[in-house]
């Protein structure tokens, strides 16, 4: 980390977005993570995505659990409310927040310990309830803040920095999310910003639980030879199924690719996802095929990345509950309190 505070002045030529905000308006305080940490790249990708989507920062709420990853919400979107909750329990807090006000965007950030170990239960239930939120796991396969213990996503056979081999099976979070009925599942790599930023943009526009498992090497404890979450290992084994360009309705689609190589997915809000297919037979709308693909490629030692599954017309938790279209936190007495006459009638029925 650096000890230098961020300068308050900014370059006058910094580009502004449709809201008149610069990228600096989407940043947070200075990161206290290790220099070179993959998580900082993810924070930068979030800043980039929110800036380019012209999202008002105060309409986003950031939530996290505990751990290195969960510290990052202080390092982006400084004008947004943030909630650093308890270890492994971000999904329940996000679920409650989403119920209270359906109009905000909820951005949950978690880690592999926070999600796959202590928080596996809450992760699972947020996915199956289809809570409208972005759920990013900054997955480095190690406990950083407590100094190098294995997590539940450490690969079987992976070697720790101290030379200890992990004998437990790894929990594959994208496979788990698919099995749980998640309506948007992706995997990114903190070292590949061109892939990650569009994935985050698409997730931010998704009307359900949008899960991104982002492999994010830990430079302090899990970036050595033998690790399966190191920069080198991930670069060598990264097999993207597609490349996603997020496109707003205003942007014209230009066909740069051969027919059949590009798929355009219309999102619920009318925005478009343009998928450049890297694996010709991969279908992002076929859950079962996606699960089979993952199993086959991962057993061959590949790290499958890209947009793995999406249901553009999904129905989220509010849809299933059939709640009113306005935020519940804005309802006042007349909408909430049935009043004395109703109570008198109720009393009469209790005698």
């Amino acid at each position, binding site marked *: 980390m650096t000890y230098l505070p961020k300068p308050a002045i900014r370059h006058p030529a910094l580009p502004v977005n449709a809201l008149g905000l610069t990228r600096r308006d989407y940043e947070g305080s200075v990161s206290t993570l290790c220099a070179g940490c993959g998580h900082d790249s993810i924070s930068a990708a979030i800043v980039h995505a929110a800036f380019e989507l012209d999202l*008002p*920062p*105060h*309409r986003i*709420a950031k*939530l996290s659990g505990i751990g290195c990853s969960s510290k990052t*919400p*202080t390092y982006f979107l*400084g*004008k*947004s*409310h*943030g*909630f*650093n*909750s*308890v270890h492994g*329990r971000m*999904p*329940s*807090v*996000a*679920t*409650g*927040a*989403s*119920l*209270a*006000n359906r*109009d*905000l965007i909820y951005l949950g950030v978690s880690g592999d310990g926070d999600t796959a170990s202590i928080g596996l*239960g*809450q992760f*699972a*239930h947020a996915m199956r*309830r289809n809570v409208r939120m972005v759920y990013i796991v900054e997955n480095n396969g190690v406990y950083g803040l407590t100094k190098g213990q294995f997590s539940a996503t450490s690969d079987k056979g992976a070697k720790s920095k101290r030379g200890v081999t992990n004998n437990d099976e790894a929990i594959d979070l994208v496979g788990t999310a698919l099995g749980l009925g998640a309506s948007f599942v992706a995997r990114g790599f903190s070292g590949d910003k061109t892939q990650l930023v569009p994935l985050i943009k698409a997730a931010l526009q998704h009307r359900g639980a949008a899960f991104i498992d982002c492999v994010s090497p830990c430079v302090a404890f899990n970036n050595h030879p033998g690790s399966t979450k190191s920069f080198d290992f991930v670069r060598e084994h990264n097999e993207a199924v597609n490349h996603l360009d997020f496109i707003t309705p205003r942007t014209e689609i230009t066909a740069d690719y051969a027919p059949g190589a590009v798929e355009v997915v219309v999102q619920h809000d009318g925005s478009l996802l343009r998928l450049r297919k890297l694996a010709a037979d991969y279908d992002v709308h076929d859950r079962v095929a996606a699960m089979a693909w993952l199993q086959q490629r991962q057993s061959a030692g590949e790290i499958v990345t890209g947009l793995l599954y999406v249901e553009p017309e999904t129905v989220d938790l*509010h849809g299933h*509950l*059939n*709640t*009113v*279209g306005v935020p*519940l*936190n*804005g*309802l*006042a*007495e007349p*909408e*909430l*309190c*049935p*009043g*004395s006459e*109703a*109570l008198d009638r*109720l*009393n009469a029925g*209790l*005698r």
Partner: protein
Amino acid sequence: MPARLDRVAGLERVNDFVVKFANVNGSGSASANRLFARAILRMGVPATPRNIFPSNIQGLPTWYQVRVSEAGHLGCRGGADLMVAMNPQTWDKDVAEIVPGGYLFYDSTKPLPASKFRGDIVVIGVPLTAICNSTYTDPRQRQLFKNIIYLGALSALLDIDAQVIEQLIGEQFQGKDKLIAPNVHALHLGRDHALAHLQCPIGLRVRRSDAVGDRVFIDGNSAAALGSVYGGATVAAWYPITPSSSLAEAFERYCRRYRTDKTTGEKRYAIIQAEDELASIGMVIGAAWNGARAFTATSGPGISLMQEFIGLAYFAEIPAVIFDVQRGGPSTGMPTRTQQADVLCCAYASHGDTKHVLLFPQDPAECFEFGAAAFDLADRLQTPIFVMLDLDIGMNERLCPAFAWDDSRRLDRGKVMTQEELEQGAEFGRYLDVDADGIPFRTYPGTHGARGAFFTRGTSKDRFARYSEEGAAYIDNMQRLLRKFETAKLLAPRPVRTDATGPAPIGAIYYGSTSPAMDEAVALLAERGVALDLLRIRAFPFHPDVGAFVAEHEQIFVVEQNRDGQLRMLLTVEEEIDPKKLTRILHYDGTPITARFIAEAIAEQALASNIVPLRKAVP
């Protein structure tokens, strides 16, 4: 065995007796038993039922006892004047429980040896199974109507107006009208049999009165749920656990009625049955952080699981309402029995230095009142509020004052800085004590484009919500939380004091479901010449009245339903009262505390310790 043994002179009591039904769980008896209690209420005589049930769906013993008391005693009395013994598994125990001169009602279809009976009770046999088998062929009908048949026989024996029961059956099956006639028929099968073959009525009788007034009859869990609707709760997250599940279910029922748009069907509420109690409290905290009124309902094991989140809500200052419907602990304990054993665990829930606000309702009326008030308190104090019910209040229907609501009442959302205030440049420090009451301002997420955003965290922070492990900032914050707790003393429901008619050197402190038994115990003690001033505590932290009450008396009895005297511990620790001054009166076998128990225990200790100048017993 004759149908009735007339050699014993049975008890003679009008509108003052206890009937206990011994049934098999899952046999459909609950509905008939409830009709019995409600018929007596409709005749204008207070009746208090208590369901004593096992942690089981079918097959284990269950009891339903109804105390009939024109004088209005709603507490548990103990003993049974009439036992309706429908369960062979518990026959011996049930027969033993009948008071001398009491009555035993049983199914006489199969003869029982004389050794199965007692010589000092009146035995009433009705061949229920034989009547059923000759009338119905379907086994389920035989089972269900047997209950209505015994209800019919009891109506004749106790002089209960059959028309009142018919009316209730009509109300119960409104909309399923074809069920009315068969039930009325079964009722008369039993009634006609009793009138034809037995001496009716017996010594225990119900006589029409007007002692019920306009009171209502409801269980505490439903009342608390209704209070939550009136208090403006929009988000409920819960995990099923006895004895609290019916609170969340009642909330859903009332919301369907009162919070559903008539034309669109859209809901002005959200209820989530969570995956566990950690998730349910997490959802409540997330919703309340985001400006909705939210609650969970649980019992002891759930409270244990919620500890970490409760500490977060205390330290990060997020409102939350937690209904704890207490049951017998520790561990799984006695899941279907009552206790007040979570007092300490809620008062100091979570690690580190914490203190929480607890409310103690005494009956469904206060469950409604405190249920609604808890949301105002939570928002005002920005902290978790525990509403401490127990199984006795929560799951039993009880006569209580009719619910009332002042339509001019407004929800107190507490100190929330608005978009306008922020726009005008009001200084916002999330943990800044601007009014010297320990309560800072908060903002809801999404309020203002440039001001008022802050980071909520469980780590220590300064007055502007910036992470800090500086000792001075930490102490500043912790001291402010203590100031806030002082503020809570005057906002929470004040204790209720009831003095003896003359000066009394001794007092009793009690709370929650002990209330009806305590009221009756005072009368019993007065008869024995022991005068007692009473203080019913309704909230923690303690109002200054509590310390004053203790100071005014030489000796205080603290009456509780737990083993360790948990409220007494709170009194000694928080009010710095000499423990010697506080005598424990403890009842914790899982059954509701009784007036007889309290009177006996207090009389024994008061008279033995000689501190009470014996006054002349009331003639």
